[in-house]
């Protein structure tokens, strides 16, 4: 436990020190990884802790991105406020989405989330006056403020803002899954009928977790729009929903950190492989199959089990037997 805490703090220190050492593009990439990691982590609340497998999590990302993009383009509200506002809006919309989707369970639940995401995709396509239609919103600025602070609009400043969002969300999620609420979520994950029989209104808990998960996914999307400077229908498309689900599973669901690692891995692999070969999708596919076969608990699960073994080896024989 202490070892993981030390490693965690080291990792955090590295992330904080990154802008001092890394060249510009590495910072760009790292910022995108942080945003994508937040997105994957938000889905883990549903997939890993409640076994609510969403096929439509792009909806959260897209709503967040469009909302923050629209507000930034059409008002001078400072960036941090806009991002948080967009996240809240996403969570609010998700209450309705969750209410309908939780009528069903299992694959039907997954398909209902997909239906909502695709309907939003269709809306974004058609509601040109707000969403820009198929062109999307482009040239989204990073508005300064509050109090005239321009720090967040710069490259390093924006990175720190995104990192703060990720860490804040992580601390929140950790607290959530360790709370009485989190215990009920685990109950739903393992045996929903029993949880209901114990007197928990499981549907309310599920709607709540959908809303929280979407709000955090919306936070990620709300960061992406001013990061990339655009928001378009691609961010609502089912392909992204599939990809983020794969990120969660590759990293290791139900760990919060795993999905962040999975997101980083997914994006870096895709980015790097596609520089080396046009057949990058082939290798990415083979990699996923290999992970399933050889790392059942995901990459993070594999890494932590290694750490455990390494620590066991490091301890002297006498300690273990005594």
């Amino acid at each position, binding site marked *: 436990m202490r070892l993981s805490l030390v490693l965690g703090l080291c990792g955090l220190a590295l992330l904080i020190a990154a802008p001092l050492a*890394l*060249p*510009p*593009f*590495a910072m*760009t*990439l790292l910022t*995108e990884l942080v945003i994508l990691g937040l997105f994957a982590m938000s889905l883990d609340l549903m997939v890993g802790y409640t076994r609510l497998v969403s096929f439509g999590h792009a909806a959260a990302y897209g709503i967040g991105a469009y909302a923050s993009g629209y507000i930034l383009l059409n008002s001078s509200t400072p960036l941090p406020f806009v991002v948080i506002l967009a996240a809240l809006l996403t969570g609010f919309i998700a209450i309705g989405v969750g209410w309908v989707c939780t009528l069903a369970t299992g694959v039907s639940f997954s398909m209902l989330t997909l239906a909502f995401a695709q309907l939003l995709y269709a809306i974004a*396509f058609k509601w040109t006056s707000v969403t820009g*239609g*198929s*062109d*999307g919103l*482009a*040239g*989204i600025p990073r508005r300064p403020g509050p109090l005239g602070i321009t720090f967040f609009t710069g490259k390093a400043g924006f990175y720190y803002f995104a990192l703060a969002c990720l860490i804040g969300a992580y601390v929140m999620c950790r607290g959530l899954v360790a709370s009485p609420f989190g215990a009920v979520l685990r109950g739903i994950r393992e045996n929903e009928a029993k949880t209901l029989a114990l007197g928990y209104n499981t549907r309310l808990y599920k709607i709540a977790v959908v809303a929280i998960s979407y709000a955090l996914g919306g936070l990620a999307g709300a960061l992406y729009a001013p990061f*990339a*400077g*655009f928001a*378009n*229908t*691609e*961010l609502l498309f089912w392909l992204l929903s599939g990809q983020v689900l794969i990120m969660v599973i590759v990293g290791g669901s139900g760990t919060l950190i795993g999905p962040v690692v999975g997101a*980083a*891995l997914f994006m*870096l*692999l*895709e*980015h*790097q*492989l*596609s*520089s080396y070969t*046009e057949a*990058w*999708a082939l290798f990415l596919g083979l*990699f996923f199959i*290999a*992970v399933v076969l*050889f*790392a059942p608990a995901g*990459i993070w699960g*594999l*890494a932590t089990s*290694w750490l455990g073994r390494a620590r066991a080896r490091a301890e002297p024989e006498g300690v273990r037997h005594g």
Partner: protein
Amino acid sequence: MTTKLRVTRRAVLAGAGAAVASPNVWTSARAQAAGAIKIGIPAALTGPLGTVGQQTKRGAEFYAKVQNAKGGILGRKIELLIEDTAGNPANCVRKAQEMVERQGVKILTGLTLSSEALAVVPKLAEWDAIFMSGINGDGRLTADSFVPNFFRANISGPMGARAVSLYLREAKFNNIYALGLDYAWGHNSVQVFEDEMKRAKKNFIGKVFAPTGTKDYSTYITKIRQSGADACYLVLQGDDNNAFLSQSRQYGLPDKVALLTEIVDLASIKAVGDDSLGLIGSSRYSFSYDHPKNKEFVELWRKEHDGGLPDTFEGETWQAMQAIQAGIEKAKSTDTEPLRAALTTVELESIKGKIKFRECDHQAVQQGFMVKVVKKDGYNTPIPEVIATFPGERTTPGCKKTTYDD
């Protein structure tokens, strides 16, 4: 077994680790080839529009090869950085940003989708880079979304629609319908076309839009049939275009309604074979265009590619590369500021004839032309044959506009 498994697990983790830690992303620009002119091409090499991306790649690579053999530009070699975006704007922005921030690229070209171009354009000022479009047809790029570092060497969507309209003014068809893809390009082109038809006092009966990825075009074919139109204007591309052409032939639609399209390209003709016969449309580039520079290019191309013919975006990319070269030579520099100034005044003799970028919106004024798909001896697939040309002044829209006044 356990040992073996453990080794394999380690391999998985190591492979993953290598990808993350792979040094080149985290470090600054690699050692540059001395004085080479770097041109970044983030193109959709894979995915549904892979055909277009691959054409761009072939066109650019061939241009670099030919020009480098002649000593490059200003005595400097052309170095192409071609990356796959899979047609996703998020990937495109990231790849373009990598080219700019890590590789020091100052000239971008060959972006495949308009959505990718629209995402990249607002970043050009920050990147201090020039973007020379060779493909992107979205009218907005030279209108609402125009930025000074953007140049368009290719024929835009509205220009294609205009060429078809000019052709129709003289043609015998009177009752006209339109079918477009349900996104910006389709709506934009159909709008231009509709206005044109109304001005030409033709009977514009109606229009319908199909989402991209439509598999069954029968309802749209039925609508066209029911409208009583004698000609239908199509703004389709890629898989949708192929599906429509195959299915409309199966319904016998072309027997009754003349089909006019905004883009005729060889890839589509190959994909639907004889189902494309009789199709009339504007063409952004065709190997059959009668111009000495083009003849020279086509000959060179066929020698290099086992007799294969250059397709639309191979020609368009070639022209975009010609424009970049002309700009650099005139500016005697690849720096953004002088290059931009030079490009706005340069006039060059390209494979499509004279082209010149307008100062106001950086659209290259060039001839528009209409082709018809016919069978011809010596070719094993149908080919587009030029049936009309229009001077650039007539096909180019008003400055920073997507519409026409006359």
